[in-house]
């Protein structure tokens, strides 16, 4: 079975295409959204999803979240004393999603379409692919998130011709893409984005402001000294951000040194604080439109996706920019997963989707390093020569011819880069190889460099000497921040040793974690009450009687609901 997975910064979803419609899979708690958080329980078992996110407040050193932001780097998240790579943590999330889907489908899930932000670079895409493999999934392809969102919307409007601009502001990434639909063909015209801009930046801004203001009056603990305090603060700031989308004022309440710190912001203050973040949204939108050569007034509709697009200031900015109201008829949290499920259906060549074809583009310019000699004989090296321009429809194959610059050069080093800068030092290096050339005066020999880029984002570089037909090929695979095949195998064995919490226990774990989080957050009498309720639930757990546990869980959940007005998914 082939499924579609939206692996998000804050939440992940899984869905599949069956009988001409998308089905999103609820997790064991009955929620469609599974928080992208991983942690270790008190008994050393792995917790994924809501339980782990609740434990971010109570056990910050044993829990990790937002690891998607570090995909493609060598940064380790420490849970206890062992460090985990972002792709390993993502693999645990994927594994939990896979188990959910298998429970619903009743058959094994082997393959998946996983979404990535459009602006993920080569290393980040490879890391996502590795995460899929670590979770025991064959990654059929990586689909860009705005394309997935557009696909979900595009299916709704199959008649006639339409041009859609998708603006996707997720938890950690911002993407824009322009999609044209005609005759059942969905053609991505251009995409652009910023993989370091998302809802979390708004939370960071609030936290920064809080620390600057409250920290001036009293000393706040550093992150290392008191991670619990910072975990609680981040959660409160997240809630404040959500509240300010509806209410005019919201406040943060965190306990520190047995005192409640209270801090109130109005929506206006928050919007002023967020202005520098909103200003960064403009450049990618402009670039996507420029690259697609479509004038803003020719767009049929503007679609918003991603949870952070619920913020009124974001919607206002978009409507001001385009002078019309954006569309958001599909739940912005689910739209990407729906698109991924459609893509999975396409890949399975489902009969109901026979009339739909999707073409995608290369998000980055790919090229090689060259040197130029100007008329004065001065050599400028480190110049970037684009071979495949960004937003070229893939699969594609392009060729450029280069010549050696020095006399009697015997070899030519071809270094492959990805990026938009004129100089290679500002672009990302993907790999290099050396090709031997016959000795001769400069400029006599010429070498054809051909780049072939396929739909799953694999780049093959081939160089051929014109005179003697000698050729050399490089498939870009390994670079720093990406695991090699052997390393993946080793990690897979290691992850296999981890004991994942049984699925039927997830509900109990989530409710315990929630109670513990509330205990950390509250003071005085409420604290005692929570302690008592929790003790009663643990006693019920020990009876191992299914019905009794379920009843006790209901009771505890109801009681927690009565004191907790800050629950969110």
């Amino acid at each position, binding site marked *: 079975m082939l499924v579609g997975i939206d692996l998000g910064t804050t939440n992940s979803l899984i869905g599949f295409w069956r009988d001409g419609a998308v089905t999103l899979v609820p997790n064991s708690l009955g929620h469609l959204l599974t928080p992208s958080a991983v942690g270790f329980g008190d008994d050393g078992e792995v917790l994924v999803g809501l339980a782990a996110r609740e434990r971010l407040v109570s056990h910050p050193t044993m829990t990790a979240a937002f690891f998607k932001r570090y995909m493609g780097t060598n940064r380790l998240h420490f849970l206890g004393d062992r460090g985990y790579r972002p792709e390993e943590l993502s693999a645990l999330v994927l594994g939990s999603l896979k188990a959910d889907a298998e429970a619903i489908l009743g058959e094994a899930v082997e393959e998946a379409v996983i979404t990535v932000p459009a602006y993920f670079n080569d290393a980040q895409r490879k890391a996502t692919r590795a995460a899929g493999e670590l979770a025991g999934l064959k990654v059929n392809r990586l689909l860009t998130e705005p394309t997935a969102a557009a696909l979900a919307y595009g299916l709704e409007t199959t008649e006639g011709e339409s041009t859609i601009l998708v603006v996707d502001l997720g938890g950690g990434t911002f993407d824009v893409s322009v999609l044209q639909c*005609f*005759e*059942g*063909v969905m053609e991505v015209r251009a995409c652009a984005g910023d993989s370091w801009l998302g809802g979390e930046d708004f939370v960071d801004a609030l936290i920064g402001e809080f620390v600057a203001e409250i920290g001036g009056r009293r000393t706040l603990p550093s992150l290392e000294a008191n991670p619990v305090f910072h975990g609680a603060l981040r959660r409160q700031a997240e809630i404040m951000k959500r509240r300010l989308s509806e209410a005019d004022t919201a406040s943060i309440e965190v306990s520190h040194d047995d005192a409640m710190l209270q801090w109130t912001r109005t929506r206006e203050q928050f919007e002023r604080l967020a*202005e*520098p973040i*909103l*200003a960064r949204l*403009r450049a990618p*939108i*402009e670039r996507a*439109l*420029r*690259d697609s*050569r479509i*004038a*803003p007034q020719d767009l049929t509709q503007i679609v918003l996706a991603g949870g952070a697009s619920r913020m009124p200031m974001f919607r*206002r*900015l978009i409507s*001001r*920019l*385009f*002078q019309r109201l954006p569309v958001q008829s599909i739940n912005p949290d689910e739209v990407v997963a729906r698109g991924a499920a459609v893509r999975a259906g396409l890949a399975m060549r489902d009969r109901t989707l*026979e*009339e739909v*074809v999707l*073409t995608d*583009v290369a998000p980055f310019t790919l090229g090689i390093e060259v040197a130029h000699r100007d008329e004065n004989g001065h050599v400028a090296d480190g110049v970037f020569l684009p071979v495949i*321009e960004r*937003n*070229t*429809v*893939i*699969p*594609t*194959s*392009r*060729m*450029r011819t280069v010549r050696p610059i020095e006399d009697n050069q015997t070899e030519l080093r071809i270094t492959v880069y990805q990026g938009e800068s*004129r100089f290679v030092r500002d672009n990302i290096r993907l790999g290099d190889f050396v090709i031997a050339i016959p000795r001769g005066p400069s400029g006599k020999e010429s070498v054809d460099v*051909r780049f*072939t880029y*396929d*739909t*799953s984002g694999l780049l093959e570089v081939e160089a051929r000497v014109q005179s003697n037909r000698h050729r050399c090929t490089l498939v870009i695979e390994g670079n720093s921040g990406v695991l090699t095949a052997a390393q993946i195998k080793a990690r897979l064995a290691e992850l296999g040793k981890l004991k994942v919490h049984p699925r039927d226990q997830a509900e109990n774990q989530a409710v315990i974690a929630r109670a513990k989080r509330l205990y950390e957050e509250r003071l005085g009498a409420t604290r005692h009450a929570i302690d008592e309720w929790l003790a009663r639930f643990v006693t019920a757990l020990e009876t191992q009687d299914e019905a009794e546990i379920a009843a006790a869980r209901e009771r505890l959940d109801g009681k927690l609901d009565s004191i907790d007005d800050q629950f969110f998914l």
Partner: protein
Amino acid sequence: MQIWQVLGIGPTGDRQAIRRAYARCLKHLDPDQDPEAFQRLRFAYEAALAATQGDTLPRGAAEPSRAEETLFLDAARTLQALSRQDDASAPTPPRVRIHVRLRPAPPPTPPPRLRSALAPIDMGTHVAAEGRPILAALERALDEEDSVEAVRLFQTAMARGFLPVELDRTFVLRLSSVAVEDIELPGAAFCALIKHLGWTTALDPPAEPQSEVARKIFARLAAEEWYAALAAAADAGGPRAIAPRVLLGRARRFYHDPAAGREISKRMREYDRHHRWLAARFDLERMNQLYRAYAEEFRLPRRLVRLLRWLVRLLRWLVRMLHWLGRLVFWLMLLGIVHAIAQLWIR
């Protein structure tokens, strides 16, 4: 191979028909299984669409490889033949300008007088009430050529989304021409603004790169870049920082070290090129002193100058010596003659 064969239709100028043909072909092939067939189809589609528009080829088809180029020429030739054939019958033959891509047309000539061609900012109905005062102030600042205020207001308006996504060209020209003339505007702010407005030599120039404003902008950008590099070099320290520090007036002493001297005179020549934009940031009197001290002195290698000076001094000394020697000999001879006459007279 011709594009219409790939698409499976007869030559046409109807975009709708081309799209329909492309969609039909696309559904019968899998880009993953047969990428080459897909690329052929894609190229034919893009070439056909470009032909209907009389446009340059879209981005995706830029830089065709050799095989593609021949296909490309074929297509152009076919279309040319087609348009000749149909001249009599068809009321609107497809405009054939496909070959333009191979030799880009010269950019359109700039408006004769820029300032008269400037339009006020378009304050359409879309601007929110809170944005109007900002745009009005921006308009005023542009009229008064107060570029610092104009840039500040422009950035505020951009950040808060009061300007539409595609900036009006005349507005871009107007703001850039005000900003480029004002040498008081800090260099970093100028560079950021120009980048924001989309003036780059490499990608999609928003206006004619040949126009006078564009020339000025790129000249000033180069100057700002040079200045930034100079300042960075001065901050870096070490022997290579001597020349930049002398130029920036941070080192009071003039150096008589040949390497530093050569570097200083090289930098002086570079400064000369950017003088117009950077004059406000340099002490002109000091620059003139530097010219006198270095630009002249280091035209010849310093060691040779010193040697020549020694030689001149030696020669002068020799001449002087000879002069004295000559006088001595003269007086001695005179003395001898007097002595001889006296002796003769005594006898």
